[in-house]
C-alpha cells in the first residue's frame, strides 16, 4: 500500500467508476455517495502521501517503476516531486469539492459520475506519470470524459463547445506526440524515461523544433493567447462542477507540462524561446483582462479572467529565475482554488436565477448576504488582494519577471488594474445597487454549497497569510530545475 501509494491515488477513481457502472441506473443516491466517497478516499490518500513526502528533497519521490511495453522500452513509471505534488493535492481537493457540487446534477447521473471518476484518474495520472508515453496516454484519457461531460450535461451550445475543446486539444496533443517520438528516437538508448532523458544533451535546432511541438500541446491546454478561444466556450457551456475542474486542474496540465517536460528536456530552446513566451504572457494578461472587462455573461467573464491569470503563470515561467518559477507554481495552485471558487459561485447563482447576464442582476447583497460575502471574498482573492494567495503568487511572478525585463513587468501590471476593474465591476453589477425585484425570492447559499467553498477559502487565506506552508514544498525542486536549465 505505502509503496504503491501513487498507483492507488490514480486508480482508486477508476475502481469507483466501475463500482458506479454496476449500480442500477435509478439508485442515484447510491451512485452519488459512491462517487463522493471515492473522491474522498483519493483526498485521504493524497493526505497520507503528503505525510510521506519529503519537502526538502529535490528529486523524484515515491517512484514506482514497472515494465509496460518492452519493445519500446515503455515503463509504468510514476513519481512525484515539488512540482507535481502540489498539483496532485490541488486535483484531489478540487475533485472532491466539484463532486460535492455535482449533487445538483439531475439527469443521467450514472454516466456522469462514471465519467467524472474516469476524468479524475486521467488528471491524477497526468501529474504523476514520469514516462513520456504513459504521460501522453493519460493526458489523452482526460479528453474523452471531458467531451462527454461538456457535451451531455452542458449548456445550450454544448455540442459545439465540446467538440471544439476536443479537437483543439487533440490537435495540440498529436503534435506533442510527434515531439515525444522525436525525443524518444533522439535519446540513446531510446527511452521515454524522464529521469534519464532530462540530462541528455540535444542539438539546439532539434530542441527548437521539438519544443515547438510540445509547445503546441501545452499552449492549447493553458491556454496561451492565440490558442485560447476554446476556453470561453468550454467554460461557459460546461456544467458548474466541470467548469471548476477545467479551470482548477485542466489548465494547469499545460503549465505543468512546461515545468515537467519542456524546460528540463530543452534548456537551450527554452532560453531561445524566452522572449516569445514573455510576450505571449503579457499579451494574454492584458488581452484577457480587457476582454473580461467587456463581458456581460458572468461565466464568460470568469473564463477570460482565467486567460489573464494564467498569463501570470506564463510570465513566471518566462522569467526563468527562482522567483518567477515560484510565482508561476504558486499561481497555478492559487488560480485553481480561486477560479474554481468563482465558478462554483457562478453556479450557485445560476441554479437559482437560471441566468448569467450580469446586467440582469443587482442588489443581491441585500437578499443573499452570505453569498455576497463569499463572492466578494473570491473576487478580492482573484484581483490579488494582499494576504490572499493570489497576491503572493502574482507578486512573486512580477518580481521574477522584473529581474528578466522591466517593460514586460510594467505592462503586465496593467493586468492587475484590469483585474480589479472587471471583478469589482462584476461585484457591483451583481451585489450592489438596487435590488432587482425579479430576484426578491432568491434563497441564500445553502450548506452544501458553503461546504464546497469553505475549504478553498481556508487554502486561499492560509497561503496568502503564510505562503511558506506550500512554497516550502516547491522551492527545492524548482531551484534544482533552475540549475538544470541554466545554460553555461
Amino acid at each position, binding site marked *: 500500500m505505502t509503496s504503491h501509494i501513487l498507483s492507488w491515488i490514480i486508480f482508486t477513481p477508476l475502481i469507483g467508476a466501475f463500482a458506479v457502472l454496476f449500480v442500477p441506473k435509478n439508485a442515484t443516491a447510491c451512485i452519488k455517495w459512491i462517487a463522493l466517497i471515492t473522491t474522498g478516499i483519493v483526498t485521504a490518500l493524497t493526505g497520507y502521501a503528503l505525510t510521506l513526502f519529503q519537502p526538502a528533497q529535490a528529486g523524484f519521490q515515491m517512484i514506482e517503476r514497472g515494465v509496460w511495453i518492452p519493445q519500446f522500452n515503455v515503463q509504468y513509471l510514476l513519481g512525484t516531486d515539488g512540482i507535481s505534488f502540489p498539483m496532485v493535492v490541488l486535483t484531489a481537493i478540487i475533485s472532491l469539492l466539484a463532486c460535492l457540487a455535482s449533487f445538483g446534477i439531475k439527469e443521467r447521473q450514472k454516466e456522469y459520475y462514471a465519467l467524472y471518476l474516469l476524468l479524475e484518474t486521467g488528471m491524477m495520472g497526468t501529474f504523476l506519470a514520469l514516462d513520456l508515453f504513459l504521460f501522453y496516454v493519460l493526458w489523452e484519457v482526460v479528453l474523452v470524459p471531458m467531451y462527454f461531460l461538456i457535451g451531455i450535461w452542458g449548456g445550450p451550445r454544448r455540442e459545439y463547445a465540446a467538440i471544439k475543446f476536443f479537437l483543439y486539444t487533440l490537435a495540440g496533443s498529436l503534435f506533442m506526440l510527434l515531439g515525444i517520438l522525436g525525443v524518444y528516437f533522439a535519446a540513446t538508448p531510446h527511452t521515454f524515461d524522464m529521469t534519464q532523458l532530462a540530462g541528455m544533451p540535444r542539438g539546439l535546432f532539434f530542441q527548437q523544433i521539438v519544443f515547438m511541438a510540445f509547445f503546441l500541446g501545452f499552449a492549447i491546454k493553458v491556454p496561451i493567447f492565440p490558442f485560447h*478561444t476554446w476556453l470561453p466556450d468550454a467554460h461557459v457551456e460546461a456544467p458548474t462542477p466541470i467548469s471548476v475542474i477545467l479551470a482548477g486542474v485542466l489548465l494547469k496540465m499545460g503549465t505543468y507540462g512546461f515545468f515537467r517536460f519542456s524546460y528540463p528536456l530543452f534548456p537551450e530552446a527554452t532560453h531561445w524561446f524566452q522572449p516569445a513566451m514573455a510576450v505571449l504572457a503579457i499579451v494574454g494578461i492584458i488581452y484577457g483582462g480587457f476582454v473580461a472587462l467587456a463581458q456581460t455573461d458572468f461565466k464568460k467573464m470568469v473564463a477570460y479572467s482565467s486567460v489573464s491569470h494564467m498569463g501570470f503563470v506564463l510570465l513566471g515561467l518566462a522569467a526563468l529565475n527562482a522567483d518567477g518559477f515560484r510565482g508561476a507554481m504558486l499561481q497555478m495552485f492559487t488560480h485553481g482554488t480561486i477560479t474554481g471558487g468563482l465558478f462554483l459561485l457562478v453556479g450557485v447563482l445560476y441554479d437559482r436565477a437560471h441566468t448569467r447576464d450580469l446586467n440582469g442582476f443587482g442588489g443581491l447583497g441585500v437578499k443573499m448576504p452570505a453569498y455576497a460575502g463569499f463572492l466578494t471574498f473570491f473576487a478580492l482573492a482573484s484581483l490579488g488582494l494582499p494576504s490572499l494567495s493570489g497576491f503572493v503568487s502574482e507578486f512573486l511572478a512580477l518580481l521574477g519577471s522584473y529581474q528578466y525585463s522591466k517593460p514586460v513587468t510594467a505592462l503586465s501590471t496593467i493586468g492587475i488594474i484590469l483585474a480589479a476593474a472587471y471583478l469589482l465591476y462584476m461585484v457591483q453589477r451583481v451585489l*450592489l445597487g438596487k435590488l432587482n425585484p425579479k430576484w426578491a425570492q432568491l434563497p441564500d447559499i445553502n450548506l452544501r454549497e458553503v461546504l464546497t467553498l469553505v475549504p478553498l477559502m481556508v487554502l486561499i487565506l492560509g497561503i496568502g497569510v503564510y505562503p511558506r506552508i506550500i512554497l516550502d514544498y516547491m522551492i527545492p525542486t524548482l531551484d534544482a530545475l533552475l540549475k538544470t536549465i541554466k545554460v553555461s
Partner: protein
Amino acid sequence: MTSDQIILVPLLPFLAFAANILAGRWLKNRAAWLSVATSSVACVIALPICWAVFQGAHFAHQGTWLMLGTVPLKFGYLMDPLSATLLFMVTIVGTLIQIYAAGYMHGDPRYSRFFAYVSLFMSAMLTLVVSDNYLLFFMAWEIMGLCSYLLIGFYFEKDSAANASLKAFLTTRIGDVGFLLGFLTLFAALGTLNFSEMNTLMAGAHGSHATLNTGLLTLAALLIFCGTIGKSAQFPLHVWLPDAMEGPTPVSALIHAATMVAAGVFLVARSFTLFMAVPNILPIVTAIGTITAFMAAFIALTQNDIKRILAYSTISQLGYMVTAMGLSGLGAGTFHLITHAFFKALLFLGAGSVIHGTHVQDIREMGGLFKKMPHTAVTFIIASLALSGVPPLSGFWSKDEILLSAFGAGNFLVFGILLLTALMTAFYMFRLIFLTFFGAARNAKVHAHESPALMTGPLWCLAVGSIVIGIPGSPFMHHWFQKFIAHMVHYPEYEPSGLVMACSIAVAILGITLAGVMYLKQKHWAAAVAKNFPLFYRLSFNKFYFDEFYAAYVVKPFNALGHVLFGFDETVIDGAVNGTGRNTLFLSEIKNWIDQYIVDGAVNFMGTAVYFLNSFVKRIQTGFVQNYLLIVFLVLVAFLILELKLA
C-alpha cells in the same frame, strides 16, 4: 522593556473583525463594543511603547515570511519616532471615532458589518504603521484600500455609493500598482525591502552615490510616490476622495481624513532617505503637493455639500503635507499630519453630528444651528480655527512649520501659493461655519437636535486634542517634536521666523473676516463675485472638470478597447479556428456538389466526347465504374512518368 506585545495591537482589531463578520448576526449592538474595546485595549498596549520611543527607545523584531530567490524576506515591526507618532495618533483617534460611530450608526441594519469593516481597517492601519518593510506595508495598504472600498459602498443600495466605491478602489489601485513596481525596483536596486536596511544603505551611500544605481533609485522613488498620489488623493488622482463621502460620516472621519489618506504622506516619510538620496525627485513632490493644495482649496470655495467641502479641505491639507515633504521638511509634514488628523477628524465628526441632527448635507439648507446643537457647533468652530491656522491652536504651529520650510528653502513661489491657500482655507471654513451655525434657519423642514453624549463626548475629546496637540511642536516645547523626528533622519531645519508667523496669522484673520462679511453682512457679494468671475467660479464649482475628463478620456476608451478586443476574439481568432474546421467540411461538400451537379448534368445532356472531357474535370466517385478506371489509368501514366524520371 520588551515590545513584542505590539503584535497584539493590530491583532486585536482583527479578532474583532473576525468575530463581527462571522457572528455579527448574534452580536447585534454588542458588535460596536467589541470593536471599541479591542481598539482601546490596543491603545492601552500601544501608548506605553510610544512613550518609551518618545523617550528615545527603538524597537524592532522580525521573522522570515518568504524566500525571495535566496534572500529571506523578513516581516516584522519597527518602532521608531515616525511609527510611534502615528501609532499614538491612530490608536487614540481611531478609538474615539469608533465610540462616536457606536452612536452614529445606531439602528443601522448592517450595524455589525460596519464595525467588522472598521476593525479590519484599524488592524490594517496599525499593521501599516508598525510594519518594517515595504511588502508588509503594501499589504496593509491594500487592505485599507479594501476597507475603504467596502465602507464607501456601505450603503450599496445607492448607486452613487456603489459607483463611488468602485471609483475609489480603481483610482487608488492605479497608484498602488505604481507603488508595487516602485518597491520591486527598489528591491532590484538595493536587494532589500526593509526600511532600516534601506536607511542605512542610503546613509552609507550618502556621500558617494557611486555605490548606488541612482537612475534605478530615482525610478523607484518616483513609482513609490505614485502610491502616495493615489492614496493621499494628490493631483491628478484626487478625484476619488470627494466621492468617497458617500460612506458613513465616521468612516469619512477615520479613513478619509485622519488615517488612511495620511498613509500616503507617511509612505513618503518612510522613504524619506530614498527621496533625499536621489536628485530631482523632491521638486516633483513639492510641485504635486502645491498644486493639490491650491486646487483643492480653490474648489472648496464654492461647494455646498458640507462633507464635500471638508473632503476638498482634506485634499488641500494633504497637499500641504506633501509639499512639506517635498521641501524636505519631514518634521513639518509629519507634524501637520498629526494635528490635521485631530482637527479634521473632529470636523468630520461635527459634520456627521450636524447631518445626524438635521438629515441634510447641503449647507444652504442649514443655518442658525448654533443654538440647537451647541456642543457640535463649539467643537466644530474650535476645529475650524485650528485648521485656519489661528494661534495657539494646533493647526497654526504645524502650518507655520510648513510655511517656514518653504520660506527657509527660499522657495517663495511655493510660499506664496501656500499663503494664498491658507487664506482660502480660512475663508471656506468660515463660510461653512457661518452658513451652517449662524444666520437664520433657511429650511423650515429641518428640525435639528443635538446629538447624544455618545457622539458629543468624542467631539470634546478631539477638540481638546486639536487645541493641545500642537504644543510639542511649538516654541513652548522648543520644537521638541521636530528634533524628535530629526533623530531618525537628518534633514535641514530652519530658524523660526516672525515674518512667516505674521503672514500666516494675517491671512487666517483676513480669510475669516472676509467670510464673515460675505456670508453674514453683505450676502449679495457671493453671487456678485460668482457673476463677475464666471470662469473662476465655474472651474471651482465644477472641480476643474476632472471627472468629466476622466470619464471621457480614460474610462470610456478602456471599455471600448475591451469590446473591440472581444469582437476581435470572437471573429478573427475564433473565426480562424472554426474556419479550419469549416474548410474540411467545405472541401468534401464541394466534392459532392461537383459530383451531383456538374457530373450528372454532363451525363444527362452531353455527348460522349463532352462526357469524357468532363470526367477530366470532375472529381471521383460518380458511380460510373468506367470513370474510376479512367482515373486509375491516368494516375498510372502519371506515376510512370514520375518514376521514370526518378530512376
